């Protein structure tokens, strides 16, 4: 602070035009990832990964399905921010950069939607609901 224009100082957004929002979101989702991805990796190591029925039973537990959805949101939010910086550093030219950012957003939002939909399908599968289904 100090050598910007008066209007710039009032807005407080700096040279990037979006202030510290990106930085803060990156840190908050990083903290989420530390907890959620560590839980997920430990779970993977403990699960019988060749046993489809056992995985269905595990992933359809309400707390597990809930945590998996949180993990998808935190991870895809974080990777969208990270890959955005990669594009901003290495992709030059306004048109290709804009196109790259659009593709990144398709990937991040599409991937997150696919992941959450898969978790919901697992959690609500008739087999997971026990005898009689729902």
């Amino acid at each position: 602070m100090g050598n910007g224009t008066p209007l710039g100082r009032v807005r407080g957004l700096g040279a990037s035009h979006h202030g510290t929002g990106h930085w803060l979101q990156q840190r908050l989702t990083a903290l989420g990832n530390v907890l959620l991805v560590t839980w997920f990796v430990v779970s993977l190591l403990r699960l019988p990964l060749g046993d489809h029925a056992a995985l269905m039973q595990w992933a359809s537990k309400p707390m597990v399905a809930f945590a998996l959805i949180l993990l998808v949101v935190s991870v895809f939010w974080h990777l969208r921010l990270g890959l955005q910086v990669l594009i901003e550093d290495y992709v030059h030219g306004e048109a290709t950069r804009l196109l790259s950012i659009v593709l990144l957003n398709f990937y991040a939002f599409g991937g997150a939607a696919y992941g959450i939909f898969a978790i919901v399908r697992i959690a609500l599968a008739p087999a997971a609901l026990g005898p009689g289904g729902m």
Partner: protein
Amino acid sequence: MAGKEPSGRPLSPHLQVYKWGPHMAVSIFHRVSGDGLAIVGALMFLGWLGAIAAGPEAYAAFVACVWHDPAGGGVHQVTNILGKIVLVGLTWAFFQHLFSGLRHFVLDTGAGYELKANKLWSTVVIVGAILATAATWLYIAKEALNG
């Protein structure tokens, strides 16, 4: 625009004039491991999740492709090896990015920039990630042999 005439402006020091150190390595590893996890790791995760949701046959096909095919198809012998290389790479990327990210949380507080401390913790991150990856795969190998 981008003229060839030499300008009087000082040039930014670039990679070839720096002496490589652990702090530089840990910086570029953070980006490489993060982008690897973001693209390869996330796609593997979605493939795994989608295969579970699609049912037992789809999941068996996923496992046969990535890990082990009981029928022993020729193509799968190749993809099984590639799958394990990718999974070891993702394990390293996970630990590298996790430890390096924790280091960034400390740096965010303004601590750890002194030359010796910076070098020490950069080295700890790199060595720690390799040791954790080795320990994880020794555990996986031990479980595979026992069960």
